[in-house]
């Protein structure tokens, strides 16, 4: 695991309960999900759906399948684990997972220090 640093990506008020938002990071777009009452309440995975080939995962429906927290990609409905990034329909497909937290009112994400702005583009 490479070294990471906390980066501010938004505010508490940007979060939408039971749903996702997309944020911009030097490591590429990331989807942040807010599940009040769950432990933890925040989850972050890559926003890019490798099967749909578009930046859309934050816009999927969140839920649980057989006890695993997942988001359904809005394009072709594959499910990605919010905790591991694993695609449930295709073993070979996985999206990155990030640490995420609220620091007071600030929403913070752990981004690899090696990531350079724009490398995703």
């Amino acid at each position, binding site marked *: 695991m490479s070294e990471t640093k906390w980066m*501010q*990506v*938004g505010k508490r008020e*940007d979060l*939408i*309960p*039971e*749903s996702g*938002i*997309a*944020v*911009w990071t030097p*490591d*590429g*777009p990331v989807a942040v999900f807010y*599940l009040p009452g*769950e432990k933890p309440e925040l989850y972050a995975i*890559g926003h*890019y759906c*490798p099967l*749909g*080939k*578009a*930046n*859309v995962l934050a*816009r*999927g*429906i*969140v*839920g*649980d*399948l*057989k006890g695993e*927290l*997942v988001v*359904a990609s*809005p*394009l072709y*409905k594959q*499910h990605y684990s919010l905790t591991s990034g694993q695609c449930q329909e295709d073993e070979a497909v996985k999206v*990155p997972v990030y640490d995420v937290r609220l620091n007071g009112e600030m929403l913070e994400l752990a981004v690899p220090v090696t990531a350079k702005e724009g490398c*995703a*583009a």
Partner: protein
Amino acid sequence: MAKKTLIVIGNGMVGHHFLEQFADTPAAADYDIHVFGEEPLIAYDRVHLSEYFGGSTHTDLALGTAEDYAAKNLHLHLDEQVTAIDRDLRRVHTPKGEYEYDAVVLATGSYPFVPPIEGNDQEHCLVYRTLADLDSIRASAEGVKTGVVVGGGLLGLEAANALKSLGLEAHVVEFAPRLMPVQLDADGGALLKRKIEELGVKVHTEKATKAIVPGEEARLRMNFADDSHLETDLIVFSAGIRPQDTLARASGLEIGERGGIIIDDQCTTSDPQIFAIGECALWDNRIFGLVAPGYTMARTLAARLNQDSEASFAGADMSTKLKLLGVDVGSIGDAHASTPGARNIRFNDEQAGTYGRLVISEDGKKLLGAILVGDNGPYDTLLQYALNGIDLPKHPETLILPESEGGAPALGPDALPETASICSCHNVSKGDICNAIDAGCSDLGAVKGETKASTGCGGCAALLKSVVDVELGKRGVEVSKDICEHFPYSRQELFHLVKVNGIRTFHSLIEQHGKGRGCDICKPAVASILATCWNEHIMAKEHVPLQDTNDTFMANMQKNGTYSIVPRIPGGEITPEKLIVLGEVAKEYNLYTKITGGQRVDLFGATLSELPEIWEKLIAAGFETGHAYGKSVRTVKSCVGSTWCRYGVQDSVGMAIRLEERYKGLRSPHKLKFAVSGCTRECAEAQSKDIGVIATENGWNLYVCGNGGMRPRHADLFATDLSDEELVSTIDRVLMFYVRTADRLQRTSVWLENLDGGLDYLKEVILEDSLGLGEELEAHMQDIVGTYQCEWKTTVEDPEKRKRFREFVNAPEKKDPVQHWTTERDQRRPANEIKVEMV
């Protein structure tokens, strides 16, 4: 080895069935197959001929297409009558040429018998057999009042129905003392007569027509043997059929004394190279005037050509179940008790208008025959008793008595032997169904697909379902209707929970009746149910996380993560000003522009953050959301109707706009499309829509439950000649009943197919209000109509809601890095190759 040639003469129902049965068998590979049809049209369903006057076309009734034939390498020669068979040279002749053959199948059918009445050959004396005959009847009926059918049998009553649907005052003239003399007895015939007269058809029994002469008040006058007379504008002869054996006769084949090509049990004629099947064939001195025996002959012959020595035709069951002009009539086996020693049980309820008769063997154990008029409910059960020789219950009368406490002893599918025929159209036995289930079919649809059961006339649908259910149950297959792992309920059950308990959020529903957090299956389904019940804004905070992306952002997500925008254009009518605005907006945001199939304009390629700005502009110009993203009412397509069209009989545009405005906010299990045509030319293609409306001289005809999509289905005619108000209230009821009872993502067509009792049941519920739900359904719809809001208008006016549309919440200026574009035919579209790989 050169192929042999098989010639099939006749392209009717039986000829077609033979080809269906034969074309895919090994023996067919040895032959070049040529099919000759005298009519210019490909084989069609004659059983449902009268629907032609209800708006059905040849395409609706056709049993196949030229493409189907070509795909099976069948050479189809339509409009080409075979004029001679040269059996010595093995050649058939037609006006267009000569064809050599190795074998011939005669499927020439029958022709209508016209009684030898003086004057029967003048103009406006017609027959009822082909679509061309129907066209003649229609032409003859143009602008006149009265029509007479000669013949009160099955076909005659069908013809009377056809005359009635053309708006004529219809009469039936029957020589015998009662209607349907072959199938019914005196009491049954009398009840049928009464019921049919109640429907406005005048019945004249025991009338022998002496002559047809010019009329004084109408075109023709029929003079009867009892010196009475009847004036009419046209006469349709439907007094039975005669085998079409002219060609066979001329070719020297053996013919029966009263006509018909003589065949043996293998359908072979007196020439071993020539076979005959269907109504032209005489077997055991009998002609079978129903389609099922013809189909059995077709199957026998197909098997026999495949060297199946077991295949043989052994006669056919002539039992019939029909709805004639809406009246149930059933006749089974030995209906007239001609078996020596037979006994009868009769139940004649003049009050309720039902008649039932059982013909029972001397020892009281077996059912030999039965007659039913007014209620065909017991038919399936009785037929199984008769066909399979099942022992009758102790009190057989309960089989035809009206249901009382305790009810009639139902003959469970369990009691049927393996050999019991479930579907006679396709000859599927209970054993075949069990085999299909053992081979892996795990639901009704799969069994239908595998065995073809219930895909013919559909009369066995209920029986088939019960057999499948029981057999699946026996094998421990529990047919789960649960919507997903979070709720142990079907959509319909969830609907009831929400409605009855007044539940307004997903959260409280899952807390009270489910488990877990939900998923992408149950969340949108519940959102749709909540919308139907309470009609709150779908972007209300509680509902946001439930929606699929299209609903959340009120636009349709495209393959690269951008969205398309479809403003509502009711009925497809739009002002030049609005058209210009659409063009200007599209230009400003570089949107790809396309006219949709539903007469609207689709604007593609908007990014998430552009959506509110674009909608702000569209709303300012007077547009509102088109709900193209929702499982909801999409468009009401229309022609131009009587406003501009030379043929339009009603204002289809006005009605389309009225309907679209009324139902535009309705959330439903599946998207809904409507169309309104201004005349029967049907330019709006209403019969392929969930709700189709076609103008008539007298109002509107309503069609329901059609669709395009993967498995297209024509809509069914549901009600005729409705006034504007009747049309709207009927649609209110149908839609609301669908929305309340359909499964998740279930189209109206599939919903109807799965509805117990099908179209008839739906008619009872909606038109006769059999459940007493009518007013409630209308009130619920009125509530939805009354609480409509343009979701986009509410959204662009609310800064909180607009925040949802930020592509990246922390970087509003960033463009999505993986959207790549190219230009094609002067417009921007997504590039095919996305070169950037994300880690």
